């Protein structure tokens, strides 16, 4: 059933007509040209599609667009414009985190949602927040170091 949906995406108002069942992932990638949320499984099992919806980590592969009316959505494209996102991106570069990079945008979003809720997580909380995200390249160590580095840099920057 085609419906008109309005929501906020990376701070901008979006309004589009789409079949309400269409998962957000396909809308982001094919209608809006935003490629950070990636297809990995389509089944909530890998986290490659992770986005933030109303401050929570959500799988774009199974979130129907109809459920987004009025929501605030952030994708990895929006990270550079946010202090926490920018700190994460810088820390991932400095720690050489990631091998192929396919999992990174989803992992960055999981970390972003965590740091927005808890700016000083310990390693166990970071691991718990990222545990729904798979990485096949074995880049876990660098990724964990990068999130910790972002936590430290944000703590330093805070007054």
């Amino acid at each position, binding site marked *: 059933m085609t419906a008109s949906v309005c929501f906020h995406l990376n701070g901008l108002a979006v309004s589009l007509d789409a079949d309400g069942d269409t998962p957000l992932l396909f809308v982001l990638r094919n209608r809006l040209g935003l490629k950070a949320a990636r*297809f990995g499984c389509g089944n909530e099992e890998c986290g490659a599609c992770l986005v933030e919806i109303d401050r929570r980590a959500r799988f774009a592969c199974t979130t129907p667009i109809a459920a987004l009316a009025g929501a605030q959505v952030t994708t990895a*494209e929006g990270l550079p414009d946010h202090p926490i996102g920018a700190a994460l991106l810088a820390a991932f570069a400095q720690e050489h985190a990631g091998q192929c*990079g396919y999992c990174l945008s989803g992992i960055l979003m999981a970390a972003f949602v965590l740091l927005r809720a808890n700016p000083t997580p310990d390693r166990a909380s970071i691991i718990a927040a990222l545990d729904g995200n798979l*990485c096949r390249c074995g880049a876990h160590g660098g990724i964990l170091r990068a999130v910790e580095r972002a936590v430290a840099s944000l703590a330093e920057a805070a007054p």
Partner: protein
Amino acid sequence: MTGRPLPKSLDDTPALGRWISLAEPGRVIIASGKVELGQGITTALAQIAAEALELRLARVTLAEVDTDRAPNEGFTAGSQSVEVSGAALRLAAAQARAALIAVAAVRLGADAARLGCDDGAVLLDGAPSGLDFWGLAADVDWGQPVADAAGLRPASAYRVVGQSVPRADLVQKRIGGGFIHDIDLPGMAHVRVVRQPFRMARLERVDSDRLARRHPGVRALGKADFLALVSDDEYAVHAAHAEADRFVRWQEVPGRWQPAKAPEGMVAAIGAEPAPATCTSTIAVRYARAHIAHASIGPSCALAQYEAGRLTVWTHSQGVFALRAQIARCLGLDVAAVRVVHAHGAGCYGHNGADDAALDAAIVACALPGRPVRVLWSREDELSRGPLGAAMSAEISAGVDAAGRVAAWAMHVTSAPHAQRPGMGGYANLSSAEAMDGAHLPREVADLPEAAGGGASRNARAIYDFAQEVRVAIDTRSRIRTSSLRSLGAHLNVFAIESAMDELAELAGADPLDFRLRHLSDPRCRRVLAEAAEMSGWAGAQATGEGVAKGLAVARYKGKGAWLAAVAEVTVEADVRLQRLWLAVDAGLLINPEGARSQIEGGAIQAASWSLKEAVSVENDRIAAFGWGSYPILRFSEVPEIETRFIESPGAAPLGAGEAAQGPVAAAIGNAVARALGARVRDLPLTRAQILRAVAGG
């Protein structure tokens, strides 16, 4: 001339201008036949060229590999990219620098010895001369063959090589884009292929009415047993594919599938069988692993367009030239009418579904002339329908003598094929080729030759000094497709050898470390072993506590690559938990140390995941379960702490690092589990079920 043989790539593609271009002011474009697989080669090769040309790294860009332009360097595999392509590029860049300086010398009327360069500016007696590379490039003969004549700068002068440079390609990949999956061609059709549930399955029936009713806008496009679903809308075709079994029926036709002929007898036999007479105690044991999936996080993807008699295919294949030849052959096109362009895929650990997806896209593109098409595999197909890592077993009969030395050693390896890349053995080796025409089913399969590092035979010869009898046989009876997965036979072979070494050490009443050193004269191997032992605080064979233990293993990858020793610490309760890994590596000269480290540690985590969790579920010679639910891999909460040390070897050549950890890590974990448990598990993966079986049996 140094008299050294030229890298093969330069024999195949001698012209300087094929490797280096200064056509764009201020930039240098370098070419390579090797492709980015997520291993960071784009950056490492740029570092090598920047070093030889004395340029800032930012000026150097690696061109995408395109069969219309790139030098043909075969497959990007076997951790050879930096060794092979790097060597060619280093010589080409050094020669380009010399040629540019020679032109500058003529222009300035000065002796070339007075000239130098800094980031593309030519210096005369150390001061700017007003000339730069790009102003001189037009006078260079770019057709000249690259020779080993220009003189390389000594390693001590390196400024860019040896630095841990961040990967430029990851900047975009972090926030979106950069992958083949992200390419949008105007007006493209979205395609999903309904794959045969087993090889040579016959497509019995497609209920087009049902498809049309349930999924308006999706149409079926068939060719013999190849079936594609096509739509303008990706979600529509995705949803239709997910329930394809509602409108597609397959049939088994007895006798239609025939196993390929296996190579006669053994494919490799090394050494002679030593006399077992002197043994005081012996073992006769069998180690095995199941089929392993590549399990990339991003499923295989390809795009294609057929226009004006020319087919262009975008792929994340490891070998664009071989793929081009096989696509042309399968579709009856002239090779010159096919162009294959590489684009980045998600992590590639060997011969995965990339090539298959490329042919899928090519078939559909040819059926829809003018229309760009994009194929994406489902998660389930990605874990099951591409070539898998081969199931293997290794039987070891060995013994120690009264002096506690290995006095007999025979190892018999049996393995499904590791070498079925496109074109190998003269066969297409592409999934949809078989579906379109059963004549493409391979009739014969060979292993990779020893010169290429071997396949099933890779690392079957132990690094130790004792006499060995090694036999390797290829078993082609299964219809499950297998091919090259990271480290090929080395994973199971090293697991078997290094497990057996621990079993023999126990018979000899020796510490596993001392026992290995007793049989080891290779100094670089001894060094990594000692280093790993030191890092881990290795304290002999005793268990470190209730259900907690360390294990150790070592190997030299392919017998000629990097040396790596691993110590693993595990706790064993209901499940095995890998707590820590210590890795000591000698990979020769490191081009990008951070890059090498993430390759090694990434490989180690993947090897741990294979060894602890992974087995493709097979019943009655058919794949029986699909998806991440039935094929778990190691998660953030399960990865160990890893400490890695590189042994510096001044003046040593760079050796690929990406596959060196697979075998030693598997064996170190196995040895640790055996000690923590007091019983040995010889079948990978080391799951709860296997442990219970071993404890019950032992």
